[in-house]
């Protein structure tokens, strides 16, 4: 299966004018996110928790976006989330390594696994890639469960500390926000660079890209590894956020969540996964009074979105702003 967003030549070529609008909305979002704790401090601190979750998940969703942009859909992201989570959890609880070092290690180890597995996985395309990554995800969960001597098995690792300087919910939120903004900058940097240009060419046609001098396979592996590295950071942050991890946290459902965030949010823009993570994390909160029906409604939302909004929420936003512009003109 290939994710092949329709992209108009004008939109894709435009390296100038709409930039500023995009910049402005990015700044606006960051300002809102930065003000979030202040705005809600008076009401519910649970909203801060939800905010933290959104920011956390946007890291993984954005990293998966890079793989989407190559025209591939990976269901193995939970495995790399888990590698990151376990790396930092085991280092923190076992060896007493300092938090920043454990954090860096989690991304590096996850990225390293991406670099090692990428050359195997990326030989496959389309649905076979999807199914292989699905099995890889299941396989990783089994390894987390069975390798008890290292991972403490299905019982998981408890008592994972938060970084000492960021132990309060508000400061931890800012830490996550900082990592998310950094991740967004990296992803945006990749997409806007000539590597991003190569990724776009690969999505359109691998053979043509290759004959234009794009080292297709190497770039695919490199992007896959970068994506794994970034989601590894989410794993580390999340482990410190929940203070507990177990194989049950890294199931296929978790991979699916990242994919759904990208699809629901929209696949043409880095805004897609951000919007998607806001929506997917917030949705259960909206449905929280209907706990029996929440999954039924969640399913209904997925079906409706795919039927009526195949371009995701980002497309909805684009349509709305186009309407506004029309109305204004």
């Amino acid at each position, binding site marked *: 299966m290939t994710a092949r967003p329709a992209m108009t030549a004008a939109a894709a070529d435009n390296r100038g004018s709409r930039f500023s609008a995009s910049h402005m909305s990015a700044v606006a979002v960051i300002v809102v996110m930065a003000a979030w704790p202040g705005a809600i401090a008076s009401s*519910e*601190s*649970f*909203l801060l*928790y939800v905010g933290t*979750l959104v920011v956390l998940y946007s890291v993984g969703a954005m990293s998966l976006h890079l793989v989407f942009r190559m025209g591939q859909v990976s269901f193995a992201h939970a495995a790399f989330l888990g590698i990151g989570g376990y790396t930092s959890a085991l280092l923190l609880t076992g060896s007493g390594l300092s938090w920043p070092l454990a954090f860096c290690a989690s991304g590096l180890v996850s990225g390293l696994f991406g670099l090692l597995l990428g050359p195997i996985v990326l030989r496959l395309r389309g649905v076979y890639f999807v199914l292989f990554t699905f099995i890889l995800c299941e396989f990783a969960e*089994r390894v987390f*469960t*069975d390798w*008890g001597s290292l991972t403490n*098995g*299905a*019982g*998981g690792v*408890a*008592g994972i500390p938060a970084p000492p300087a960021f132990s309060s919910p508000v400061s931890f939120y800012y830490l996550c926000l900082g990592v998310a903004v950094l991740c967004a900058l990296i992803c945006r940097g990749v997409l806007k660079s000539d590597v991003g240009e190569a990724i776009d060419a690969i999505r359109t046609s691998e053979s043509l890209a290759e004959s234009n001098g794009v080292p297709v396979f190497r770039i695919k592996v490199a992007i896959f590894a970068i994506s794994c590295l970034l989601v590894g950071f989410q794993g580390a942050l*999340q482990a410190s*956020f*929940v*203070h*507990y*991890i*177990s194989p*049950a*946290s890294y*199931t296929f*459902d978790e991979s699916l969540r990242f994919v759904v965030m990208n699809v629901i949010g929209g696949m043409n823009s880095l805004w897609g996964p951000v919007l998607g993570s806001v929506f997917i994390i917030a949705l*259960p909160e909206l449905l*929280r*009074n*209907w*706990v*029996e*029906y*929440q*999954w*039924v*409604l969640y399913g*209904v939302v997925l079906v*409706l979105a795919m039927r*009526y909004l195949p371009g995701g929420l980002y497309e909805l936003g684009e349509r709305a702003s186009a309407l506004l512009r029309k109305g204004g003109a």
Partner: protein
Amino acid sequence: MNKVAKLLAALATAALCLSPMPLLAKDLTIGAIGTLSGGATDWGVATQRGVQLAIDEVNAQGGLKIGGETYTPHLIIYDDQYTGQGGATAATRLVNADHAKFIIGPIGTPPTLAALAITTPAKVLMLDDGFSPKILGPKNTYNFRISATPQEFAPAMIGWLKKNYPKTKRVAIVDPNDSVGQQVMPILLKGYKADGFDVAFTEMYDRSTKDFTPLLTRMMANKIDVLDLSSSAPAEAGLLLKQARQVGFKGVIIQIGGPSVEENLAVAGPLAEDFISFDFFNPDNPLAKKFGDAYAKKYGSTMSSWCPVMYNAAKILFEAMHRANSIDVDAVKAELPKMTGYETIFGPLHWGGKETYGIDHQLLADIVIEQVKDGKIVRRDVVSMY
């Protein structure tokens, strides 16, 4: 689109009707965390129903009359998805958004350990259940385990087995390869060895397994006298039971590691004959009978064995509030361990666990040993854990 909208509206209305409406008097939020999605959904449903039945009883008597006030408890339950993140999110939501001071559940190690990381610093009382020894500890003072674990009941059961089936020697233990099974297996291994049994075959199967015939074929080569289904969940235990008889196993089949006789009988049918297991729930107890009737009246369908456990937890909690004459968390927490002897559906209440966990926050009870005879469950014995 119109149809879909109508369906949505209908669902929404139904959901609103089902969600508990706050009534007059003072509201008392009883939080609950349970698994309401995926394969363990019945645990969450059991939690919801058990606690709700206890609340119904209180409200039928006009609420909780404490310290001159009348409190109407109402239940808010969230899904933990049986994950750490899910448990933590549910706990945070209850603590920070709903300002719940008392939480019942979750069941299972991952959501419980993650929820504890939220509730302990927030000083919220949690009555939960998970087999990990890490759940109880001298630091987790706001936490009580409301069901016994194999650590507590396995020695008693194995002792009973040795006494009643003295000729058996070679034991096979089959556990799911999950947090439950991985905790229980070593406990049982130790217990059997201590009583002189020879554990000749152990196997951990994947939770998604439905066909155990290959596994049992492997077991049959080991000349086994006793097959212990250990902590297998009801459906899997029933299948193991049925398929073990189908591959021609003629020895004793017992389940030490979790109670589920009724479900196993339902799954295995006539092949469940002679199966031995235990239950905390003794239907001869008048309180238990009353509860069983109330459940049947309200929900009709078969009852999960977790349901009385969660009902019991809520009953104990309300009683502790009465006795403390306060709904202050610390007062209730201080009162709970003093309630030894309080008559519950599982018999007189007893807290223990100090020597194992360093804190007496482990609920202990009698075990009713049951066996399937002529397609019916009969009581064979009652043994005590303490």
